[in-house]
């Protein structure tokens, strides 16, 4: 039966994969079991068909997945693919709320619905959508703070195991940048609204309302929604931690109704978008000769004409090899598989959501070892069970238990190290093994790639993480009507264990000097081929979080009032074995939140938290963080209520103070850090006292004053517009003393840092949407946003430089992490000294190495004829993008659906150096840009020049200048998913509720302004893992 549904090809692909990895067998069993169970469930008739209905849209299409909820309760169910639902309700006067994203929420009484079709009206503004804010959930129209939400369904269109990857381009105000593209270990920087501080800038991540470090490992299929909380009003209840914003993830929960089982199978292939071009050996030899010639060593300094001919003709590749080491060691693509089985459902008393996922990612390198297994692979299991239990009319409890088991296998060398080593091997090198099977090294690279991959041993790492959130809700209306309380606790334990089987290997170097015409090798170094020796390492970390809150809600007439107070205790013990990890982080918070609503028109919130952290000295530990916000829903006024043109109009404003206690990534800076070290040279004195760091007893947190103004507009129920303007003035930023003279006697790094920095960060987010359903079969939705942020350092402990400096401040008045370097003077046409005469005529003296013909002409900004640090200037855009945007297009046509996501960043620069740019690196490493480096001949012929004259050592050109500062802006076709939903009739025939097949891709197309054909703009540099493109095919079956 299975074969009927699955396309044959897919089945065979799956089966093939399944036998590759033994773990997959287990998963296959699970998938089959789940399918079986689902099938069985589909056979079972619902036991209590009390109330049933069908939800359709204005075109008569069934609305699948709409929530049907008994008003003011947590009893709810979802409609199936046909829009049908069944619901058990005893009270004849019960009111049901029927809601679905993109539709206005409808309230109907039980009597109105039985067996009837309920027609939902479109609402593209989504003003009824429930938003999860801190300690609260409420409909969008009543939210007074700046937040943005994306649903888990949307995120799962990105075929990745890492949730962070899916967030790019979907949330206005959230900036996502990849910094590690190693397959399976991808990692991302996430920032909300740019940068407000040079210190810790990461937003805190909440999973189900509790601080977590799990964002990159949570199973994306578990995610119900992700909300980013941007302004002070939204984050103030995490007062001292909320300064950088909050990413709040809510996981799925069970709904009232019959069990629903969903199975997903995904097969992916990842390939690098761009890999560096590796040069042919003849070209390499020619460029090396060119470099030495430029330095005055004459022609053929390294390679004779005969050798150059040898590389060119290739008749004897033993003596004159031409090896593309990248192709030799790196696989063209990496495979991965993901399987996911979830079940959810519930009854009056118990609701559950349960999920099991398995992900496998293969390794990037070609492995030849057979004695032990250094093959790269990552196998990850995620599981989660969220249960809600109603104990009686007053008490209910919930329990979220999730876990991750990840097993990683690989070489003992880090993948990054292995990859980098490839670039240190010239194409002229014979190898990778001697005819006697010994590893060949070079004088520059004594850890050659082959040895790192195949002969360094293996490492098997198992990480386990268990997280439990347990809680009790109690309705205290028997004391005061509207009063309730909640107690919850989170425990999180992570353990990490490594087994390292290390082997040593001999390095041999070809003796070219003595035997230029034959292969002869000499052993280098003292390493030996040694058998495996095993070591093991374990780390452990633990976190907990306790919460107790009291809530009071009251409605009278048109007014609603809510009050909430809570106490929270956070405890984190990190895995690090240094000063950061030895002692736990502890925080205590008391908070209160009051809200007032008037007739769906006006909403006002005031919240404050009083939070303390042991990062600070006793007496300086607690701070008060207040925030207030208001929203006015103009469109709910009578005069606009039935206006067909302006369907939504709301303005918001907020102001508040939040903090940041992530200071220098270290601990307890209020204490002196004076240590006694072992015996130094006077043994009779028995040790040294080192004053590593003087404490600042007045140490405090950063204070961010945040203001936000927002406007939301819906037009004709087709167009939506949201704009937010923010201004963040952050002061008390902790900075190292750089104005205290060193003659004070303590190195500046040891002086107590002080809270005197100030940064102003401003910007906006605008979001435009267009949604239209044209007819029964065709609908289109487009969302596009752009956000902009700009920061400026207002104060820093910086001394003004002398008058002979072109720029007298290096940070004050500039954006954070401004790049400084030399400007190239292009008044002669190309910016290079094109002859010795030109150098002499310029009269410029370079600090450091003197310029040669073919080196850059730097601008003498202070006019003293000396090119030195006095001439450096701010270059390029900030290292952090000012602009970030995304455009999301959703199309449905009959049973087909398509989602297309474009994403990009703008106004961002990076300063590149070293390998890939400085050609002298590692005895000469050349890439595309060096092929057309400056030579006198090339200049004379008028040919294009793409790099300064090559050199055998660091030249006057190889320093930070505007040639090496590149624009990292890009536009990507980030994500495309095309799906086909099998007709319900067909799906039902095989006893399933729905079957959907889809193909998707990630990072499909990129347009950038880097001007470097070897690099992708999101990549670190040439020796890091290149950004990947992913192709995915998937199947979803729901029972």
């Amino acid at each position: 039966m299975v074969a009927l549904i699955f396309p044959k090809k897919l089945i065979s692909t799956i089966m093939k994969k399944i036998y590759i990895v033994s773990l997959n067998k287990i998963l296959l069993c699970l998938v089959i079991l789940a399918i079986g169970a689902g099938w069985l469930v589909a056979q079972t008739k619902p036991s209590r068909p009390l109330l049933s209905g069908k939800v359709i849209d204005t075109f008569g299409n069934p609305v699948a997945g709409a929530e049907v909820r008994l008003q003011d309760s947590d009893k709810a169910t979802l409609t199936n693919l046909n829009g049908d639902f069944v619901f058990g309700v005893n009270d004849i006067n019960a009111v049901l709320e029927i809601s679905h994203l993109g539709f206005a929420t409808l309230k109907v009484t039980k009597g109105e619905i039985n067996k009837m079709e309920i027609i939902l009206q479109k609402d593209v503004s989504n003003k009824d959508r429930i938003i999860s804010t801190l300690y609260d959930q409420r409909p969008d129209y009543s939210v007074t703070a700046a937040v943005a939400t994306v649903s888990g369904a949307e995120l799962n269109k990105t075929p990745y195991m890492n949730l962070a990857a899916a967030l790019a381009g979907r949330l206005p105000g959230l900036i996502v940048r990849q910094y590690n593209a190693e397959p399976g270990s991808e990692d991302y920087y996430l920032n909300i609204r740019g940068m407000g501080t040079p210190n810790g800038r990461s937003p805190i991540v909440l999973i189900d309302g509790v601080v977590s470090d799990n964002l990159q490992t949570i199973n994306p299929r578990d995610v119900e929604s992700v909300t980013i909380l941007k302004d002070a009003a939204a984050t103030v209840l995490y007062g001292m931690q909320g300064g950088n914003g909050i990413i709040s993830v809510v996981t799925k929960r069970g709904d009232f109704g019959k069990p629903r089982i969903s199975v997903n199978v995904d097969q992916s292939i990842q390939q690098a978008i761009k890999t560096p071009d590796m040069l042919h050996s003849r070209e390499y030899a020619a460029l090396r000769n060119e470099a030495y010639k430029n330095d005055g060593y004459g022609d053929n300094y390294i390679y004779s004409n005969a050798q150059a001919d040898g590389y060119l003709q290739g008749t004897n590749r033993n003596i004159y090899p031409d090896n593309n080491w990248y192709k030799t060691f790196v696989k063209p693509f990496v495979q991965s598989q993901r399987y996911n089985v979830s079940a959810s459902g519930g009854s009056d008393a118990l609701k559950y959501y349960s999920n099991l996922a398995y992900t496998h990612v293969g390794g990037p390198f070609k492995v030849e070892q057979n004695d032990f297994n250094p093959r790269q692979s990552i196998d990850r299991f995620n599981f989660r069970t969220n249960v809600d239990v109603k104990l009686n009319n007053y008490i209910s409890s919930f329990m979220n238990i999730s876990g991750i088991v990840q097993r990683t296998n690989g070489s003992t060398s880090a993948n990054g190290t292995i990859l980098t080593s490839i670039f240190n091997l010239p194409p002229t090198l014979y190898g990778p093994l001697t005819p006697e099977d010994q590893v060949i090294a070079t004088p520059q690279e004594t850890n050659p790639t082959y040895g790192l991959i195949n002969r360094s041993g293996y490492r098997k790492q198992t990480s386990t993480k268990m997280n439990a959130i347990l809680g009790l809700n109690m309705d205290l209306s028997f004391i005061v009507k509207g009063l309730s309380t909640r107690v919850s606790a989170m425990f999180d334990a992570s353990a990490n264990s490594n087994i390292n089987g290390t082997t040593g290997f001999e390095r041999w170097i070809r003796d070219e000097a003595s035997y230029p015409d034959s292969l002869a090798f000499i052993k280098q170094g003292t390493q030996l081929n040694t058998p495996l020796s095993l070591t093991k390492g374990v780390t452990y970390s633990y976190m907990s979080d306790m919460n107790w809150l009291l809530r009071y809600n009251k409605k009278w007439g048109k007014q609603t009032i809510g009050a909430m107070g809570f106490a929270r205790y956070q405890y984190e013990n990190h895995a690090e074995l240094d000063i950061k990890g030895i002692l736990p982080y502890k925080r205590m918070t008391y908070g209160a939140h009051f809200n007032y609503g008037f007739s769906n028109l006006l909403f006002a919130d005031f919240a404050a938290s009083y939070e303390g952290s042991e990062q600070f000295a006793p007496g300086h530990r607690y701070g008060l963080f207040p925030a207030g916000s208001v929203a006015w829903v103009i469109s709910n006024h009578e005069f606009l209520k039935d206006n067909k043109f302006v369907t939504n109009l709301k303005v918001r404003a907020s102001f508040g103070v939040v903090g940041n206690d992530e200071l220098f990534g270290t601990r307890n800076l209020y204490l002196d850090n004076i240590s006694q070290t072992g015996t130094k040279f006077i043994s009779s004195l028995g040790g040294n006292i080192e004053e590593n760091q003087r404490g600042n007893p007045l140490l405090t947190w950063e204070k961010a004053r945040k203001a936000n103004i927002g406007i939301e507009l819906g037009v004709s129920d087709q167009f939506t517009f949201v704009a937010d303007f923010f201004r963040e003035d952050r002061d008390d930023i902790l900075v190292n003393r750089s104005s205290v003279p060193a003659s004070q006697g303590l190195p500046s790094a040891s002086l107590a840092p002080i809270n005197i920095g100030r940064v102003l960060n401003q910007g906006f987010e605008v979001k435009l949407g267009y949604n239209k359903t044209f007819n029964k079969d065709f609908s289109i939705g487009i969302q596009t946003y752009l956000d902009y942020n700009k920061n400026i350092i207002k104060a820093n402990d910086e001394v003004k430089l002398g008058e002979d400096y072109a720029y007298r401040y290096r940070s004050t008045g500039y954006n954070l992490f401004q790049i400084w370097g030399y400007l190239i003077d292009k008044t002669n046409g190309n910016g290079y000294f094109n002859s010795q005469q030109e150098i002499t005529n310029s009269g410029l003296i370079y600090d450091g190495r003197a310029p040669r013909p073919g080196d850059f002409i730097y601008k003498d900004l202070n006019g003293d004829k000396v090119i030195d640090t006095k001439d450096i200037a701010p270059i390029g855009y900030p290292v952090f993008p000012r602009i970030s945007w995304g455009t999301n297009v959703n199309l449905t046509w009959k049973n087909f659906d398509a989602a297309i996501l474009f994403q990009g960043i703008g106004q961002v620069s990076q300063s590149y150096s070293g390998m890939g740019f400085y050609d002298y690196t590692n005895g000469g490493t050349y890439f595309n840009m060096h092929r057309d480096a400056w030579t006198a001949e090339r200049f004379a012929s008028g040919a294009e020049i793409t790099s300064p004259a090559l050199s055998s050592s660091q030249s006057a050109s190889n320093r930070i200048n505007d040639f090496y500062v590149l624009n990292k802006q890009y536009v990507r076709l980030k994500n495309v998913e095309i799906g086909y939903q099998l007709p319900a009739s067909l799906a039902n025939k095989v006893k399933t509720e729905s079957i959907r097949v889809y193909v998707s891709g990630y990072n499909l197309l990129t347009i950038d302004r880097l001007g470097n054909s070897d690099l992708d703009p999101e990549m670190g540099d040439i020796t890091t893992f290149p950004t990947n493109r992913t192709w995915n095919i998937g199947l979803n079956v729901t029972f």
Partner: protein
Amino acid sequence: MKNKLLIILLAFCGVTSCQNVLDIAPSGRMSLDEIFTDDATTSAYLNSCYLNFPKWANFNSTSTNMRIALTDDAWDWYGNPAVPSNKMYIGSATSTNPILENEDNRNDNTDDVMGFWNKCWQNIRRCNVFLSRVATAKVTLESDRNRWTAEAKALRAFYNFELIIRYGGMPIVTSPLGLDYDYKQLKRESFKACVDNIIKDCNEALATPEFPWRISAGNEAYRFTKAIAAAIKSSAILFAASDLWNGGQNHWAEAETNTKKSLDDCLANGYELYNKVNNPSIFQSAYQEYFCSVTDWSATPVDKETILASTYANNDWIQFHGLPIQVAYKSGLCPSQELVDAYGMQASGQPILKLDKPYLDEAHLQPNYNPGSGYNPVNPYVGRDPRFYATIYYNGARRKNSAGVLTDIQTYYGGNCGINVNVRARTITGYYSKKYDHPSATISARIAATYRIMRLAELYLNYAEAANENGNLAGAIAAVNVVRTRAGMPNINPASKDEARLLIHNERRVELAYEENRYFDLRRWTKPDADLSATDRYLTGMWIIKTGNALDYKRFSIGDSWNTATGSWSNTATPRACYTNKYLIWPIQLVESRRLEAASGKKWQNPGW
């Protein structure tokens, strides 16, 4: 109902308001106050006053010993423009480019860009912290307290001395500056005022009975002694009286008194010149043996001359200042012809050049021979001062090669150690350095030699110079002749103060060659408005051409090379650019001078920078 509510609220507050939840576990962090409540940690703090103690003898594969390379004694070149000495030669030192300061950074952990300045100030602060607390610290033995106090004072004097001879007069800081210190009070003092303060510290240390004259046990190795304090005093007053620093005042009388006192005190307390060759089968002179030995710490040491030894017993000399026949990494500091010319003739005791005007031309290519010396320009390396043979490898000198075979060193073009300006391991002057090269050492079996920072001979020469300038010609001559006698040279007998000055200066150069003294000597002998063009601008070497058995000795400007085919010089020599007035005193790093100027409202930078 209200009561119930109250109970709930009270419970809420009661449970959550734990006062101590944020108290951290005992962190084990020490405060400065705690340090001085314990004998062991107090002594450990004194130990940290030695942290990053300068090691001198600085060189490795890429760096060089600047205070030798930047004098007219040697030239370091191996074609890498990044080598600090090259940057200095081309004049690219700026106050933002701490080339000079980097020299002293090797082998310690304070490689922040501020280099030596920071190091001195950090250690002055440590001494000040220690001295401000030691009187009340919990120290078991009063004798320890007294010795430690004296030791810290001598250390403070040392760091202050090293600071001011580089940067000029500095603020006199005798207590640790707090973070709230008002820098408006901070100002540069005159050099003499600083020296007075240094001498005061030294005298207080010298007056402490528990402070020993000599370290006589290995477990106290490198600790400061009274002899060091006496030597600091001797040097400090000599500098203060010299042209660069005297501010137009005559301090020579005070200099003579102090240098004599220091010398006499050292002699009275067991210090004496290293006079005896213990291993005559290897060493030709005591002078040679002395520099190839390692300081011994015992009550009856062989070496009674060393006052302050570097902590760096260096065995890399053979590698980084080595000979091609030993397959050394580089030739390193190649002795200049000017240094070679400074060694007189042993028989006559006369200098080979007229000391008042050694060269007739600016480029030093035409020597102004001293007719009576007995020097023969066509056989230049015979009959010279024995210290020449202990310090310099020349064409015809002999040494074991890497295979252990005694070999003639051939520095002529094409010889086994032949001159070649393009090859790192070859000499560019025609000479190789020898002073710390143990004759039995090879690259694979190296032998360490201690670098001496202060030794007794210097105290003789300090006194000789001060006495002569103060008009005590007889005392000066007597002191110089003690040093010459040990070296195996005849006595000098100058008739005038001026003649004696030239001889004393030359004696310092020869006796202390490759010991890093000349860098500061040349500067302190220069008037504040003068420059070093006579000595440091043009340097020469000896290009020897061998035709058959005939050797043709050609003096040449370093950087040139002789083209045998065309019979002409390449004219590629570039004179050094680091001789001008501003190079007399180091720059304060720009960032630091800006800080100081901003904080104090006064000008701090040295002239020319």
